[in-house]
């Protein structure tokens, strides 16, 4: 009812850190520097410095949680060390692994995106339709428009869920495909 125009006290850095921690906790997806900066009405640099400090804190405490950069944002998660106890408590099993065919198809899509079904066939030497269907169902890949060529085939690329499920900050974190060449011989 009363729209007060409050003179905001400038926040100190430890307050900013606390708010960031609360927001990262509340967000159900990795939260970006950009949206933190918008909500807090602070500049990127301040946010980045605050996050760096917070990340250091978590690292030093070495408690049950960690602060990680993932899929272009920041997220709190448990440390890998305690997965057995957590699984026992949640009564879950590790989720079904992808088949060899699906993993291969995913690696082609990850490195060649945007890529069409015939292009995937070319590299893998085998039809990949059911693997693509699985990857779409698991939301690891998404349609990325059509290729302007004969038949206008659908193109595919990896999704944000792909980054999250594979623990990647962004696609550039993937080792370059040429690096694998050295491993082969």
């Amino acid at each position, binding site marked *: 009812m009363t729209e007060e125009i409050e003179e905001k006290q400038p926040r100190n850095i430890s307050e900013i850190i606390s708010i960031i921690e609360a927001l990262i906790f509340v967000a159900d997806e990795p939260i970006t520097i950009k949206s933190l900066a918008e909500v807090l009405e602070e500049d990127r640099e301040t946010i980045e410095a605050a996050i760096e400090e917070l990340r250091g804190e978590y690292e030093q405490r070495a408690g049950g949680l960690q602060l990680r950069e993932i899929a272009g944002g920041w997220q709190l998660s448990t440390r890998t060390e305690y997965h057995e106890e957590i699984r026992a408590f949640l009564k879950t099993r590790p989720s079904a692994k992808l088949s060899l065919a699906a993993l291969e198809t995913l690696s082609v899509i990850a490195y060649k995106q945007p890529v069409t079904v015939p292009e995937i066939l070319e590299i893998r030497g*085998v039809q990949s339709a059911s693997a693509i269907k699985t990857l779409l169902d698991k939301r690891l890949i998404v349609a990325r428009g059509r290729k302007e060529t004969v038949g206008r085939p659908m193109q595919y690329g990896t999704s944000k869920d792909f980054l999250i499920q594979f*623990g990647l900050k962004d696609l550039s974190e993937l080792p370059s495909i040429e690096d694998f060449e050295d491993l082969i011989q």
Partner: protein
Amino acid sequence: MEQHQTEQLTFDFFTETPHITAESRDEIKLELGKFAGPLDLLLYLIKQEKANIFDIPIAKITDEYLKYIRLMKKLDISLAGDFLVMAATLIEIKSKMLLPREIFEEAEEEMEDPRKELVDRLLEYEKFKSAAQMLYERSTVEQAVFRRGKIETDENNTETSATVFDLLTVFQKILSRHKEEIQMEIEREEVSLADMLKSLRKRIYETKELNLLAFFGEMHTRRELVTAFMAVLEIVRTESVKLLQNTTFGEIVLRKV
């Protein structure tokens, strides 16, 4: 082929990676897993032979490859057509390698090694295979990391965020729901082969060319599809209509000649 007698073959299709274990000197146990494709099988055979990928003993590898295919068939395991395509490729390369050298020498330019294209494909494929391994390891590590449980502000939503493929999947489901209802109401009249042939002929003569997949897609029931298929075989056999495929894996069209 005396190794035929000493080979004891056991199959375990649940193991992801195939391997051979030599249990004793004359007993080789071959465990064939699910190969991800013909290139995968080929790489495996090359490693098995400890062969140099840049100098593949093509005759030997081809024999091994065909042996595997035959075994799969004997065990009644459905083979993807791609495995057969590769078999044909190998046989082709093998026969080129057998050509007398003089033929090459006569040619002005030096003949390219018939294996080159295959080697290039294998090398390219192997990179992605290694990348797949890396992804596998990453996801395993990531499965040990957990995100927070539900909190109040998550609002108990049973909603999901949708992609374009969700739109299509959902639409398909609605249509099939719909179709079932209709089919319960009306008994569809079956199309005879003669009728099918007549309409197919009309279509081809009108348009000169007909996309086979699209034509089959118009069929409503399995029976109609079978009839359509028979009509295509019949028209190709009896009339001046050809089945054509422009690229190796391209679409198949019927064309009047």
